[in-house]
C-alpha cells in the first residue's frame, strides 16, 4: 500500500507539480467550457425526456458563460493577450437572464405538451409529421 502510494505520487509528480505551481490561464477555463459545452450538446441530442433536453441547453449556455468570464478576467491572461474587459461579465449576466427566461417558456411548453399528450417523451411529439 505504501509503495503503491509512493509510486503513484512519483508517476503523478511532473504533471501534478506543474498543475499546482503554474498559475491558471484562460486556456484552462476554455477546457472546462469545452467540456461543459460538449456535454450539453450530447445531452440535447441524446435525451428523450424533454426536461433532459432543457438541462442540456442549460449546460451549453453555462459553457459559453465560462468562456466569457475567462476572457474578461484580469487574473488569467498573459502579457499582451487580448481581453474583453468588463464586457464579458456583462454578456455573461445577460446570458444568465436570458437562460432564466428561456427555461420558463420551455418549461411551460413542456407542461402543455404533458397535459395534451400525457408524456414527456419528445419522440412522441410527431403530430406535424407529414
Amino acid at each position, binding site marked *: 500500500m505504501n509503495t503503491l502510494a509512493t509510486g*503513484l505520487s512519483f508517476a503523478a509528480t511532473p504533471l*501534478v507539480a506543474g498543475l499546482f505551481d503554474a498559475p491558471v490561464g484562460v486556456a484552462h477555463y476554455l*477546457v472546462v467550457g469545452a467540456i461543459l459545452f460538449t456535454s450539453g450538446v450530447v445531452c440535447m441530442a441524446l435525451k428523450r425526456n424533454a*426536461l433532459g433536453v432543457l*438541462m442540456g441547453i*442549460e449546460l451549453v449556455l453555462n459553457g459559453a458563460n465560462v468562456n466569457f468570464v475567462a476572457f474578461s478576467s484580469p*487574473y488569467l491572461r*498573459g502579457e499582451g493577450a487580448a481581453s474583453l474587459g468588463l464586457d464579458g461579465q456583462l454578456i455573461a449576466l445577460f446570458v444568465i437572464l436570458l437562460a432564466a427566461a428561456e427555461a420558463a417558456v420551455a418549461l*411551460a411548453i413542456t407542461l402543455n405538451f404533458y397535459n395534451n399528450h400525457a408524456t414527456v417523451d419528445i419522440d412522441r411529439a410527431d403530430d406535424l409529421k407529414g
Partner: protein
Amino acid sequence: MMSFGVVPLAGLVAAVAVDVPFAVVNWHSVLFLLFAAVACACAVAVVLADNVVRMAFYLVLSLAATAGLFFLAGAEFVGAMQLMIYVGGTLVLLVFGVMLTAQAPFVAIKTSAGDRVLAGMVGAALLAVLLQAAFRVEPWRRPAMAAVAAPAATPIGMALLGVRVDEPAAGVPTTAVRSGYLLPFEIVSVHLLVVLVGAAYLARAKRRRTPRSIDVAASSVGPVVTAREAARSSASALVSGGGR
C-alpha cells in the same frame, strides 16, 4: 463514476503531501482544479444518468461549481448571480418541472445503444476541435499573476446605467467612446416580463368555463324565449302600463 474521480484526486493529495512543499502550492490552482473537476464530472454525469431526478441533481452541482470558477476568475458579481438566479431560480423551476411530470414510465427513458455510440463519437470529435482551439494561443496559456483588481460590482452597476467607469480593454484607446448597457438592460427586463407572463399563460390550468350568472338566468327562463321576444313582451308591458 466515483472511482474515476477519486483516483486522480488521491494522487494529487499524495503528491502534495510528499513532494510539493506546502507554501509553494498555488491555492488558486488547487481550488481551480477542485471546482473544474466537480463541474466537468457532474456535467458528464448529467449525460450518463438515465434518471431525470439524478440529472437535475448533477446539474445543480455542476452549475454551483461553475459559480466557484467565476469567483476564482475575479467575476464575483457574476458568480453570485449565477448562484442566485441559475441555481436558486432556474434549476428550482426545472426541479418543479421534474416533479410535475415524474410519472413512473417517464422518470427513466432509455436511449438506444446505437444512439449513445453515435453521440459519443460526435461529442468526442467536437471536444477534440474545441480543446485544440483552446491551447492554440500562446498568451492565454502562460498567464502572469496579476495584481488584485478592484471589485467589479460597481462598474457593472454603472455600466447597466449607461456609464462606463471601468478601464478600457487592452488595445482600446482611453478616449474612445464606449457604449453602456442601459438599452440592453431595459430590453432584457421587458423581455423577462413578457416571457414570464407568456409562461404563466401557457402553463395555466385548463378549467371548464363556469357558467356566468346571466347565462344561468337566461337558461332558467327557458330555451324558447329569445331576446327579441323578451324585448317585445317587455315593450308591450310598458305600453299597456302607460295606457292604463
